[in-house]
């Protein structure tokens, strides 16, 4: 079974004060640690579990600058067999369409039974690349998958819908599945393992290698146009009860008492 996993390196902004760049089209990356996108990490783990369960081969693929090699090496340390980076400044800065097209050109030239990726990137939140890729490859897809079982030439998945409802879908292979967090327990990649993986080759492909001309790649190849980034306007928001933890808690306790909860 040949599995391709699409992964993305993203900045960790969970606890950070995100600052916009001076051109208003990106954020300041300085000081933000980079990591594998959370749901991609679950997708990678799912591919490794399939590989361990039946004979398989896992190829990880990413689109991004050289720093993204870190994510590929981590994936190889965990057990991925091959790594590919779509490495060309011309490919960067694109919308979901442009990213999916580059991935489709690369994956379309490989042998594969299954393509896995995370359901959403934590930075741009687009929730779009996986399905777009499937349609471009001309294979079926399922999104938000929290359970998966490989059959004979098919895969049955559970899609997480609203309200805890799960929709089971059966698809023929090859197919694209976008993975939701929580489907498994991602393993740890040891630093020693990552150092060993650093000695292995990462295959790189340029826009030309993918037969993409200038108008099809990156920003030029995007269907939507990023206009500007802003800070969200400060809404009315909560009444902040200030002071030390003890003072603020005393204020809140009084509020709760007035409302009949304390």
């Amino acid at each position: 079974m040949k599995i391709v996993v699409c992964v993305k390196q993203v900045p960790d902004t969970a606890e950070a004060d995100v600052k916009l760049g001076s051109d208003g089209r990106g954020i300041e990356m300085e000081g933000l640690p980079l990591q594998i996108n959370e749901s991609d990490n679950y997708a990678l783990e799912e591919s490794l579990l399939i590989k361990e369960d039946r004979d398989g081969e896992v190829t990880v693929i990413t689109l991004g600058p050289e720093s993204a090699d870190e994510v590929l090496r981590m994936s190889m340390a965990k057990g991925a067999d091959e790594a590919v980076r779509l490495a060309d400044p011309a490919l960067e800065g694109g919308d979901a369409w442009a990213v999916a097209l580059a991935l489709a050109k690369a994956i379309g030239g490989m042998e594969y039974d299954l393509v896995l990726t995370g359901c959403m990137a934590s930075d741009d939140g687009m929730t779009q690349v996986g399905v777009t890729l499937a349609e471009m490859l001309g294979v079926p897809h399922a999104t938000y998958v929290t359970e998966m079982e490989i059959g004979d030439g098919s895969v049955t998945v559970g899609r997480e819908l609203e309200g805890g409802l799960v929709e089971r879908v059966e698809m023929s292979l090859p197919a694209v599945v976008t993975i939701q967090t929580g489907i498994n327990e991602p393993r740890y990649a040891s630093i020693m393992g990552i150092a060993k993986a650093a000695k292995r080759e990462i295959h790189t492909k340029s826009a030309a290698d993918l037969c993409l001309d200038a108008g099809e790649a990156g920003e030029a190849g995007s269907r939507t146009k990023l206009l500007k980034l802003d800070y969200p306007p400060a809404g009315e928001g909560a009444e902040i009860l200030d002071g030390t933890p003890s003072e603020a808690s005393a204020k809140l306790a009084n509020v709760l008492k007035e409302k009949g909860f304390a």
Partner: protein
Amino acid sequence: MNDVLVLAEHLNGELKDVTFEMLTHARVLADAGGAKVAAVLFGSGVGDLAEKLTAEADEVLVRDHDGFANYNSAVYQPVLADVIRGREPSVVMIGHTAFGVDLAPSLSVALDAPLATDLIDLAVEGTDLVATRQTHGGKVNERVGFGDAAVRLVTVRPAAFAPQAGSRGGSVIALDTDVPQEPAFRRFVEYVEAAAGDVDITKSDVVIAIGRGIKEEENLAMINEFAELLGGVVACSRPVVDAGWLPKDRQVGSSGKTVKPKLYVAIGVSGQFQHVAGMKSAETIVAINKDPKAPIFQAAHFGIVGDLMKVVPALTEKITELRA
């Protein structure tokens, strides 16, 4: 401007809230651009739902067919693509739901049309439409244009727009577009309801919710104690379920449960929209978080910026004192 098309989403004979929210905003856009609002309804035996939509739209385009008994993007997509090709709307609005996310990107490829997802706003600016969406966990707003596309596809975040009842008195138009057989490559199997647990968080007047900020499973003890003090139940956001610290039936949010308690205390919950969607109707919302920029403070009525490990014990103590 041409029509604004809204794809109605429904399950078990009920239209989803997001449908009414989209139609409300669609009317604003259509009025601004001198255009019509058309709702598109696919389903099997959905006459009642079509009637409900007549107040909301100028036209209700209905395809009532057995093939739509269950949702399958592989069946919906070619039919919707046909309808769009025939009507050439300026905008097609689809909910940013598990259904919409499965459908919209493949529609975008089939029509070669731009798609902007998870919108919190869409406005006419000059001759173009400009979408606003959020990135980096709600810390950045991104404005997106659609170039010179004739048809623009968008998915709209649930609860981004407040629904208002319409009074359009639209007509129901039955479509006769071909509905393909469910393809062998993607077959609907079944819906599986989540298993019921020991606690029903939707029934409690007080819900104490924890999020990623709880950091360690051990800290649950402190939360349980606090919840007990207020006579509430403990619920959570997604990361707590992913970590296996609470069962799925305690999850509040779009993929979990919707709660409307009298008091909702969000502790160490950042407030991603998926979570807020499940608790925004609570009567009183209190947020405790150490990140003053956490989106949860936008949803809350009262907030404390501080470390939950200090605030929760202090609060427990103060409430105990008040009662004594």
